Every structure is written in structure tokens, then in C-alpha cells.
């Protein structure tokens, strides 16, 4: 890994097709900064994304990357990381991608605790399919498919993560460039599954959860005496629906990543040109 990597090295020459003003620009820039600051370079970084406006992020970045199918970025990312633990692996996606179609994978990725970062661009709407309700949409939020609002409570992704045994739970805001990049970097550097729910407003379809809304309601935990290693304090913040918190909410400092636990530490791309030397022992087991 080279030490003089700049965040622009992670930029591809493909122009984003996101709407001007979309939160995903800020989210992406922060991820690129976090990667550069964490000391990796594009040839040793693997980005995995799902489907949605958010899912296009891998296309606009330069690294090894896969743009997978809707909702399944997390198992792909875990597969990449386990096959080559030397890589820095970041999964990214939307709230629909991660908490709806991919909700099952989310819970199990949290439990599995593979050493990677997961950044969800939460705009509380389906952007790419043009404005339907997402699992984080408000109960009364009117959309093309829910004219009266979904009339179901939104999921609380932080609570899902905590309940599943999350070892790193954070939230950031796409336009708070510095904070967002710091938080993502901490998620990357966490030994285990670093989860960041990023408020990334959709300027086209969501006129409720706007930049202004977040600016007015966001409380940066760095400005409080919150101790992220205190589980009960974290739980309290996560269940407090009266505010939107920014910062690292919970961090289990004793977290041991899946790879460490299972001793998965080799680059699996390296194999001999024939069967292993002792392969006949495998046959002999069947005597």
C-alpha cells in the first residue's frame, strides 16, 4: 500500500448521473476520503454495492468493485474479505437495498462481524424507482405507492444492528464532510463489521427528510458526553426517536472479527497447480 494516496485516486472518470444536489455525492466523497486516510489504495480496496441510486456509488469510484443485485451486497462483501483478508472492503447501499430486500442479510452480516465497513445511504425513500416508500419512510409519508403513507412504523436500523449484536454502530450526515469521513474511517478501522447509517437526502422525491430537516434536528454526539463504549447509553440513544444522532453511537472495543475468530487469514487466490501433496490422504480416509 502506498502512503501518498489522495482521495481523488478513488474517483473514476465516469460522471455521476445522480440528480444535482443528491446526498449521495457527499456520501461518496466522504467514503473516498475515509479510504485514503485509512491508508489503502485503489488496487487493494474492494467496493461492493447493491441496486438503487445509492448502488451506483461503486461505478463512480475507482477500485476493485462489484455492483451486485438488489439487496445482496453484504454477502458478496463478506466473500471478498474472507477470500482475501488483506483487502479493505466497503459495502454501500440504500435503505431499500439494505433494510428491505436485504434485511435478512443485514442482520446476519452484523452477527457474522466480518471486518468491513457498511455504509447505508438512507434517504428514507426509493430513489431509483422514482419515489416509493422505503422501510425508513415515516408512517404518514405520502408516496406514489402509499398515498396515505405506509402506516407502518419505520424500521430503526441502529436498533436492528444493536439487537443483532452489532459491534460498531454509527450515523453520519452526507454534507457534514469532515465528520462523515471521520466516522466512516473509524468504521473501516474497526475490527469487525463497521456499520454507518448515512443521512443522504433525496432532493427529488423526499421533501420531508431534507437537508434542512437534518440540519435542524441533528445532534452530534461529539458535542455531548456520550460514551460509545457504554452499551446502555448507546441503547438509550438508539431508542430515542425524538432526535437524529450523528457520530459513533456504539462501539464494542472487545470485538473480534470473524476472520480472527476462525483463523481465516490467507489470500485464497494462491493455489498450487495440482492437487495438494497429501491429497491421497483424503482418499484414504474412506478405507
Amino acid at each position, binding site marked *: 500500500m502506498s502512503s501518498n494516496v489522495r482521495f481523488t485516486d478513488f474517483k473514476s472518470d465516469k460522471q455521476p448521473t445522480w440528480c444535482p444536489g443528491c446526498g449521495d455525492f457527499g456520501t461518496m466523497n466522504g467514503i473516498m476520503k475515509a479510504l485514503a486516510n485509512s491508508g489503502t489504495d485503489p*488496487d487493494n480496496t474492494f467496493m461492493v454495492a447493491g441496486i438503487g441510486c445509492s448502488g451506483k456509488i461503486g461505478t463512480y469510484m475507482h477500485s476493485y468493485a462489484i455492483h451486485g443485485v438488489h439487496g445482496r451486497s453484504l454477502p458478496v462483501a463478506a466473500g471478498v474479505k474472507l477470500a482475501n483478508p488483506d483487502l479493505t472492503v466497503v459495502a454501500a447501499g440504500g435503505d431499500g437495498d439494505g433494510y428491505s430486500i436485504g434485511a435478512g442479510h443485514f442482520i446476519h452480516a452484523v452477527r457474522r462481524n466480518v471486518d468491513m465497513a457498511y455504509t447505508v445511504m438512507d434517504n428514507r425513500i426509493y430513489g431509483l424507482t422514482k419515489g416509493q416508500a422505503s422501510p425508513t419512510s415515516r408512517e404518514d409519508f405520502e408516496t406514489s405507492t402509499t398515498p396515505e403513507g405506509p402506516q407502518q412504523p419505520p424500521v430503526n436500523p441502529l436498533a436492528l444492528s444493536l439487537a443483532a449484536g452489532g459491534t460498531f454502530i454509527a450515523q453520519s450526515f452526507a454534507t457534514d464532510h469532515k465528520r462523515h469521513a471521520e466516522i466512516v474511517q473509524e468504521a473501516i478501522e474497526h475490527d469487525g463489521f463497521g456499520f454507518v447509517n448515512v443521512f443522504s437526502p433525496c432532493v427529488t422525491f423526499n421533501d420531508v427528510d431534507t437537508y434542512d430537516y437534518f440540519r435542524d434536528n441533528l445532534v452530534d454526539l461529539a458535542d455531548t458526553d456520550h460514551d460509545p463504549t457504554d452499551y446502555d447509553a448507546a441503547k438509550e440513544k438508539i431508542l430515542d426517536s425524538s432526535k437524529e444522532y450523528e457520530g459513533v453511537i456504539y462501539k464494542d472495543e472487545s470485538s473480534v472479527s470473524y476472520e480472527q475468530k476462525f483463523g481465516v487469514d490467507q489470500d485464497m*487466490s494462491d493455489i498450487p497447480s495440482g*492437487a495438494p501433496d497429501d491429497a491421497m490422504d483424503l*482418499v484414504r480416509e474412506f478405507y
Partner: protein
Amino acid sequence: MPADFNWAIGGEAGDGIDSTGKIFAQALSRAGRHVFTSKDFASRIRGGYTAYKVRTAIDPVQSVVDRLDVLIALTQRTIDENLDELHEGSVIIYDGDRSTMADVEIPEGMVGLDIPLKALAEEAGGAIMRNVVALGAACAVADFPIENLDSALQKRFGGKGEAIVENNKKAARAGLEYVHDEYDHEFDYDLETTDEDYVLINGDQAIGMGAIAAGCRFYAGYPITPATDVMEYLTGRIERYGGHVVQAEDELAAINLALGAARAGARSMTATSGPGIDLMTETFGLVATSETPLVIVDVMRSGPSTGMPTKQEQGDLNMMLYGGHGEIPRFVVAPTSIDECFWKTVEAFNFAEKYQVPVYVAADLAMAVTEQTFSPEAFDMDEVEIDRGKVVDDDSIDEWLDEEGRFQPHALTDDGVSPRAFPGTEQGAHMSTGLEHDELGRRTEDRSMRVEQVDKRDRKVETAKETEDFSPREFGDADSDTLILSWGSNEGALVEALDFLEEDGIDVRFLSVPYMFPRPDLTEEIEAADEVIVVECNATGQFANVVEHDTLTRVKRINKYDGVRFKADELADEIKATLDAEEVSA
């Protein structure tokens, strides 16, 4: 004296049927006899009829027949279920004291041996060994040297301590002696032993062993009958070679995990059965479009939906050939025997990497859960060759960079195969996507690039057809006018059916086809024959349809879809009936 000997133990699930059957199979194999096992089991853990059958001979055996010489029956139902296979002189070993055998009825002409299995086991050290007492009794009936059973008991219980082994040996002898003392019946059997060393392996295990031999390092799966043995085999073994097994939350996750590992450069595999393939089909298209080498094993069982989970069928061929939206090249290899499960898995990995395609290995329940004896050389590891295809490294990557120094993972090449760079390769950073893409892997809707990329992916199939040998395996009389075709596990039964037919003066040519796509062109063989019969375990004749489509020739079909595999003798009769029907109508 019959050339082969057929033995079974049956009872309720939970009676230890499987392990007892396995011990006897192992004893025979260790005595240098060939063995072929089959299982009847229901989809429940306790209760419900279950049986383990063993056929053994000095010559290789590779199928089941409609015959049972000795049956250990723990329940009356065991006798009822096997009535068709029992014959005049068949021996039934049972424990008349057992409540499930209180009103036992031994069919006319058969020999019932009432042995106090439980009481004798208790004397030897514990009621739990009553099945082993029965095995000892079976040794007496079959005139099979009990020392060979000792060796299998040692293997099975050695880990639990010598005392347990000794007690089991004692229990076996109690059974043997009881038969000698109480019954002075002359039995027809004499199971000779030889000095040969055989291994006893099932299809799932052979697939797992093939994967390790081929350098597979990553496996993700979700348990499902009858594919679970693959995962169980790899767990605890793949780690010795630096690999890892993940039990995923579902099949969607399993294939995506495997895809990620493959993109990171690992030889990667998942295995499942039909219902799991349904779920994986979503990601299958991504695997193909992103040109990711991946091996996907489908151990077929009876469908649709949950169907009959513990029963045989070859019903997923259409899904493997055509499943998924859009059009995507994929390879489908179909092992035809248990040893071929090993070799075809090795080959599947090479195909996957040489052509950067998903490769289905189409196995089926009948071969997955069946054990068969082989000489160890059948799995000669020196023969395993690994071909990773066009992988570039830091030095060779230059050739594949565009003018702006960007790597082209989907470069348009004559053979359809593009270069591959594992993460970590300098200047190799690139995008893989399920979206249509350009040579750099970036999304495009450019009409000519779309056509070029589709053609490029299809070109790999042509290249493979020119490069690889997709010939069928040939058996029987090459000059016969009658041609039999089949795929998958029917091969063994057919090969033995040829012997039965030959006894009746009927010679046929049999081609067993191990490649479903790309597949051999059988036009010439079909045109040379008067009669073509396609044999398969499904109702609609999925392979027969493909053959008709390829060769523009109507074929006859023998289909079985009652959940039970073909038996050699039964199949010979069906073939005769099909041929006779033809003569009558001619």
C-alpha cells in the same frame, strides 16, 4: 450361489439404521468386496420407515437390483415394504421380543430367524448394541468372516475407547453364535474375501473431495437434503488447505458469498438442491454477466416446490440449462457415477476459470447419498490438473490496459475470454457489474457494445467446443442398431442392464452423456441407429427433448418419476418392452 448378495436393515428412523448399514458396508469393503449401498428414507428424523441396503459382489457393482437375500427387520413394516424384493429362501432376522415385531409374519418360503437381539446385546454390555448383534447374525447367515466386521467396528467406535470396541465385538459374536447354535439351517451364501483395498465413498463426498483436489478454498452453503453432505465433508477439511466454509443465512447469501470470494480470486463453490437453485437463480445472472468463475452444485431431488425431499429425480435440467432472465451462457456438467462426481468437479473448476462462466454440476440424490467401493486409484490425485485460465499479474497486465492505462476485464477477444486480475494486482482495479457494460466493465446501453459483449460471452461456448472433449462415455455394442442415451446416475443401472440384455441375446449401444451444455453433437450416432431410447428420472423427458431439438429426430423415452432410482433388472425389462412394442407395431 448368486454372484451378488443383497442385504438390508430396516426400521424406524432413529433406530440407528444408517450407522448399522454403514458398518456392514464398511466391513464388506474392508474384506475386499465391492459394495453398492442405497437408502430408503423419509423426510423426518424419528419414526417413519427407513432402510439401508447393501449389495455386494467380488466384481464391481454400480446399481441396485430387485432382490433382497437377507433382511434385518426391526419393524413389521420393514418386511411389508420390501416384500417385492424378498424371494423364496430370503432370510429375515428379527427380534420376536421387540414390541414392533410382536405379531411378526414371515412370508411363505422365507426363513425367519428369531434372535433375542436386545437380550444378547444387554449381555454383551448394553441394549444399544442390538443392531450389532444382528450384524453378527448376518455374518453367520452369509458365511462372512466376522473378523472383517471387527475391523469396521474398530473404525466406527475406536474413538470411543477400546472397551466400547470390545463390547461391540462381543455383541457381534453373540449374534453369530446364536445362529450357529439355534439354527442348523444350510444357508446358500458364502461371502468370500479378497486382498483388495477399496474405499467406500458417496457422491456428495466425492464432490467435496474433488473440490479440495481442484484447489477450492471457499465454500458457502445452506443446508438442504441431499446436498448437505458436501458441506459437511468440506467443513473441517478445507481449513487444512487454508480454505473456509461459511454456513450462510440462506441460498441467496450463499451464492453471493461464493461470488465475492471468486471475485477476490478464490476457487469458490456452493452446493444446493432445486429449491436452493431457485433462490440462487437471481444471482446466477450476475455471475454470468460479470464473467465470474463459480461452481454451483445442484444435487437434484424430487420437485417441484418441496416435492419429495428424500427422493430421486432428475427434474432440474431445464432450470440449469435455461433458468434466469435474459440469455446467459453457462456450462452444465453432469457426472454419471460416483467417481465421476470427483472428476467432473475438478473439471468444473477448470471450465469455470478458463471460460469465466458459472458452471453447474448436476448431481442427483441417487448418487449423492449412495456409497460405492472404488480402488483408491480411481481418485488418483496426480492426475488432477489445475488451469486458472487468463489470469494477469503486475507484469502481464500492461497488455490489457487501454490508452489511458485502464484495465479491461471485458476486453473483446477472439476466443471470447478476457483477462482476469485478482484484487491487489497493480493497475487492475476494475468494476464488475450485472449491468451491460463496456470493455472496462462500466455500464453501457450503447447498442453496438451490447451486441459485442453478448457475442463475446457466447463465443466462449464455441471456443470450448473446439478446445474441450465433450464426448459421451460409451458402453455396450458399438455396432448395435439400438442406441440408449442417458445422463446422470442412471449409468450404473444401465451398464448392468446391458448384461441382463446380453443374456437374452440383445445387444445395445449405450452412450452416457456427462455434458449437458456445451454438449456433444449426437446426430451421427442417432442417425446410425434404428432405435433411440433416452432414459432419465423425470416425467417430461427433459434430456430427450434436448436431444430431439439438437438432432431433429424423434426418440423413445423411458422415464421414471416415482422417486425411486432405476434398478438394473427392472430397466432391462423396460428396454425389452420398449423394443418389443416397436416390433409389434412394425
